[in-house]
């Protein structure tokens, strides 16, 4: 095993993010988490969709895939299922993951594919310059809703919980230490890990967003039990504060494990060769025709 430091994971591509963007904290946490796990560069694939945050794969010196808007999860699952030895990390924003790509979240959760999905939630569309996202709050005005927002925001943690994701965590990109911890635990979790990282957009939401979150953020208490669905529902419903930490975790067989069982069931009658399969399509003369 190599002796990797966080800088070993840094690519030579310079981030295009605005100075002070919350995404820098997430990137930093990704470097450190990979180093903490000492993962070889070639065994990691970071997959994204489109958006400011989705630029992240290019900044990490592992394998990466900056795909198309909303499709981070299916691309990531394809990579993982085709080559299970890869550590797959999916990253993207709230728009990418909850609007256009919102239909993929329940399905990766019910499959429980063993990968980690970091949703970098800035509550806005940054890359297209400031339109409403599915997590933008009622109290804001945006480029696409200049008279105020008339749609309720989605709650990513609540969604993940109702889709029965087996690992759900929330962090704040300004608290890099905690983010590193959550990402490491997410990667170590066997199954689908969903991590919401609040990472403010300084340009279209404003720098004060950091202060607002800082004021509301609390770490989950020491006696919090991530195995308790009741407590997790309470956290997902809370108002007036934002709890950070591992909100829910349970162990269930992963998709890969179930797939192996299915393969065994399919091969109960012995392994098949192509020639055997082809024989099913063959017709031969009836026995009685020869007499």
């Amino acid at each position, binding site marked *: 095993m190599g002796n990797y430091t966080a800088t070993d994971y840094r690519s030579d591509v310079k981030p295009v993010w605005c100075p002070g963007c919350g995404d820098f904290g997430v990137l930093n946490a990704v470097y450190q988490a990979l180093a903490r796990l000492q993962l070889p560069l070639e065994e990691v694939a970071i*997959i994204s969709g489109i958006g400011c945050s989705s630029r992240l794969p290019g900044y990490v010196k592992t394998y990466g*895939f900056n*795909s*198309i808007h909303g*499709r981070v999860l299916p691309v990531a699952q394809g990579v993982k299922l085709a*080559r299970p030895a890869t550590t797959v990390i999916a990253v993207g924003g709230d728009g990418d993951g909850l609007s256009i790509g919102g239909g993929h979240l329940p399905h990766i959760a019910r499959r429980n594919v063993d990968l980690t999905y970091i949703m970098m939630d800035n509550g806005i569309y940054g890359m297209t310059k400031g339109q409403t996202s599915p997590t933008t709050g009622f109290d804001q005005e945006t480029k696409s809703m200049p008279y105020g927002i008339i749609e309720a925001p989605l709650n990513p943690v609540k969604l993940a919980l109702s889709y029965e994701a087996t690992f759900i965590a929330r962090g704040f990109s300004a608290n890099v230490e905690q983010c590193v911890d959550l990402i490491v635990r997410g990667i170590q979790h066997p199954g689908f890990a969903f991590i919401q990282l609040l990472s403010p957009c300084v340009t279209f939401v404003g720098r004060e967003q950091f202060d607002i979150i800082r004021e509301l953020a609390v770490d989950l208490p020491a006696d919090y039990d991530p195995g308790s669905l009741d407590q997790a529902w309470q956290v997902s419903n809370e108002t007036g504060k934002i709890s950070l930490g591992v909100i829910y975790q349970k162990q269930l067989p992963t998709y890969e494990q179930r797939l192996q069982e299915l393969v065994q069931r399919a091969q109960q009658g012995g392994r098949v060769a192509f020639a055997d399969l082809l024989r099913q399509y063959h*017709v031969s*003369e009836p026995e009685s025709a020869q007499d």
Partner: protein
Amino acid sequence: MHEEDSTFAIVGSGGEGVVSAGEILIHATARDGLYSMMVKSYGPQIRGGESLAQIRLRKTPVLCQGDALDAMVVLSWSNFHRFAGEVRLGARGIIMHDSEDAPPPNLKVPDKVRFVAVPFAATSKQITGGAQAKNLVALGFLAGWFDLPQHGFAEAIRTRFAKKGGAVQQSNFSAFQAGVMLAQAETTRRRYNWTVSNHEAKLVLTGNDAVALGSLFAGVKFFAGYPITPASEIMEWMARELPRFDRVFVQTEDEIAAVTMAIGASFAGVKAMTATSGPGLSLMTEAIGLAAMAELPLVVVDVQRAGPSTGIPTKTTQADLYHAVFGGHGNLPRVVLAPTDAADAITLAVHAFYLAEKYQLPVLLLTDQFLGQRLEVIPQVDFAALQPKVITRTLPTAEELQHYQRFKFTDSGVSPISAPGIKNGMYTAAGIEHDETGRPTSNAELDEKMTRKRALKSETIRKQEPGLLWRCGDQDPEIGILAWGSTKGVVQEAVARLQREGRKVAAMVLRQLAPLPVTPLQDFLTPLEGLLIVEMADRQFYNYLKSQLNLPHNTRVHQHLGATLFTVQEIIEAIKEVDALWETTLQQTIAAM
């Protein structure tokens, strides 16, 4: 050899065992050395409604579904009006119907058609205690009437009902035999001789089976799909077979997930594919652009069906041609292949993976409902001959990995491709424009170079690969036909008949639509006096050809907009019109001189 060539239809309502009877007939006669093809027609509803199976039987391979019916077996008339327009009864055709179910009074049939009332249901009740086996009585009657060889039926019926046990097998076979006896009691019928001396090994399969089989042979390791008519059978096949070969099948939440998952798998280094029909292809188009931009191998099968939007999912068309060839935003290099029949579907599935892997781009395999769902008996396929086209991805060399450039500019447009797990081969694949290493860029000059690099692959394919074409007819033709994909059979038969009449006709059928094999096509076209273009779409093929070739002045399009299949007769008439047109133009020119 005595040239027996008969076409039958079995019609009824869903649930009456129409298709089942047809399948038994095909398997049974194949065992006795005969070739056949069965096309199905049914309503879009799940249960009930109309159901029709049309079977053509010959001693030599069947090229198309046949023109007029020699016999129509009617299990019930109740839904007949729904497809009355699709069944063409021959002038001396025979209608075999249940004695208890009289033909509708307003039925329009040719004058000489003969009606034979047979106690299908009553015989079934008498033998099996219920009317359920009336399809087997009817099948027996048909088999007896046309003197079909009997040996195969015993086994085909036994195999068909194997899961239901000996008693059911026996009573069904008795029902069949009772039908045979009823027919043999008829002394006024014509006699047939179906004996074949040389049995060759044969395969019985649908076009969808063939695509799946070819893909597995080509080494597909990952299939992701979403159900859609008439492509679902490919997905179901993969679901059944892939786990038996340690390969991965996923039924996804939608078509976009299916194609992007396959792209992810391809990025991870394995041969990956999906299969869909028109509406699904529309949804997948953005991702097909991603595969082209990220230069990842990908195979997408489109089993075309009628109509934009939902259209008629159970009827055929060739109207996705524009979408396959031009669909997508930006400059999107792609390969489009179109198999002509089930055997060719195996071959082209292998080719699709070969081209995708070798040139790192999306390949669309364009079949249709007619080919995908028809059941064919074909001569054995030479898989060994296909083996050289089963290739593995060429990975970067140690030297290339020293300063690895995933999208390096090369003379062919193809660059060394790595995958997770390969040390020092790390790169970021992207749909965003990038430089040779994969770094994002919006530099116009670089974008121009990269776009040219990707487009260069089409040129390289034109240079390095033989354009996939199929040709038949006269070596030195006066009149030519251009067609593509599954219309090959009907064209081939039309050309053969015209040649027998002494006409100098030849046809070229495209199995590769993009990149268009311009040179061989133009060589074929230039000396022609007239050209007929045959397509099942509203001039899409014609317009596409016109945009890249010099078509003869005397060019005519013979089209169906879908839903109904071409007959050999109408193709022959259309060719004769092209011929006549040439004559008139010639005479006018002479007169004007």
